[in-house]
C-alpha cells in the first residue's frame, strides 16, 4: 500500500468509520513505515487532545444580561410601533374626514348633522345601556389582543402603505387644485 493512501485511512480511523480490512491494512503499513507511524501517532494524539478540551462554564449572569437586552429592545420597538400606529390612525381619520364626513356635511349643513349624530348615539346608549356596560370591556379587550397580534406582523406594513398613499393623495389633490386655479 502506498503512503498516500494511508492518510486517508487514518482519517477514516479518526472518524470511527474504518472497516476491519482497512484497519488491518493500516496496522500492517504503520508497523513497517516509520513516517506513517509517526503521522498516525501524532494525528491520533492531536485529535485526542481536541476531543478532551474541557467544556467551559458560561458566565452565570448570561441569562440575565440577555433578558435585559431583550426587554430594552422591546421597549424601544414598542415606542416605534406606537408612533407608527398613531400615524396610521391619523391617515385613517384623514380619509374619513376628506371622503366621508366632509362631502356628507357639505350637503346637509354642519349643525344639523352634529345634532343628528348626537341624538342617534344617545338613543343607542339609552336602548342598549346594559349590553354596552357588559360587552364594551370584553370588546375592548378582544380588540387589544387583536391589535397585539396584528401589530407584530402585518399592521406596520399596512400602516406604512396607507401613509404613503396618503402622501401621494395630498400631492394629487394639490396638483388638481393648482390645475383648477
Amino acid at each position, binding site marked *: 500500500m502506498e503512503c498516500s493512501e494511508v492518510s486517508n485511512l487514518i482519517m477514516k480511523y479518526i472518524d470511527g468509520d474504518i472497516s476491519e480490512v482497512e484497519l488491518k491494512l493500516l496496522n500492517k503499513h504503520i508497523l513497517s513505515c516509520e513516517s506513517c507511524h509517526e503521522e498516525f501517532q501524532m494525528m491520533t494524539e492531536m485529535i485526542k487532545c481536541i*476531543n478532551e478540551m474541557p467544556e*467551559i462554564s458560561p458566565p452565570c449572569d448570561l441569562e440575565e444580561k440577555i433578558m435585559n*437586552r431583550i426587554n430594552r429592545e422591546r421597549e424601544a420597538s414598542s415606542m416605534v410601533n406606537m408612533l407608527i400606529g398613531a400615524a396610521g390612525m391619523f391617515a385613517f381619520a384623514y380619509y374619513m374626514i376628506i371622503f366621508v364626513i366632509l362631502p356628507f356635511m357639505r350637503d346637509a349643513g354642519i349643525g344639523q348633522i352634529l345634532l343628528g349624530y348626537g341624538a342617534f348615539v344617545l338613543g343607542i346608549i339609552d336602548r342598549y345601556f346594559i349590553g354596552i356596560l357588559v360587552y364594551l370591556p370584553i370588546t375592548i379587550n378582544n380588540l387589544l389582543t387583536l391589535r397585539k397580534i396584528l401589530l407584530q406582523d402585518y399592521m406596520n406594513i399596512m400602516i406604512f402603505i396607507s401613509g404613503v398613499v396618503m402622501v401621494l393623495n395630498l400631492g394629487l389633490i394639490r396638483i388638481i387644485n393648482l390645475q383648477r386655479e
Partner: protein
Amino acid sequence: MYGADMEIINKCLEGDDSAFEELVSRYKGIVFNTSYRMLGSYEEAEDASQEVFIKMYRYLRRYDPQYKFSTWAIKITTNYCLDLLRKRKGETVPIETQYDLKDEGFTPEEEYVRHEKQQMVKKAVDSLPPKYKELIVLFHNRGLSYSEIMEVTGESLTIVKNRLYRARQMLKDLLKDMDKEGEGLWNAVK
C-alpha cells in the same frame, strides 16, 4: 417546569419571556463553548453568546422543527463567529490560557505535558482559517455527525469531509512547526 424544546419554543412564540430564559439556560453551554472554541477568548465568547441569543429570539419563527434545536443554535453561532472572524482578519488576537480542568490520575509531569500539549493544540486551532476551524470545532469539540455538520454549514458531504481532512492535516503541520520551535513535546509521544 418545562418539557420538550418544542413546548418551550411555542411558549416563546406566544410571547412568554420566561420560556425564552429557560431556552437560554438549556443552550447557553453549547452556544458559549462553540463561540469560545471559534473565537478563542472568554470575553469575546460572552459577547458573541449574547448576540447569538438575541438573534435566536428575533428569528425563532424561522426555526424549522424537523431539525434539532441544538443544530439550529450551533448554526447561528458558527455563522455569527465566522462573520466576526472575517471582520477581524489581520487583527492580532490575544492568546488566552486554557481554562483547564484538573484531571485526577496524572503525575505532575504527565499533567504538565498534557497541559502544554492542549495549549499548543488550542493555539494551532485558533490559528486555522475560519472555515477549517469551524469543522474542527463542530466535529471534534461538539461531536456533531457529518449530516448535522451538513445542516449547519449548508455544504455537501464531499466538501465537509474534504475540508475536515484538510483541517486536520493543517493542524498537524502547524503542530509540527510549533514543536520544532518548542520543547519537542509531540516527538516525545513516539
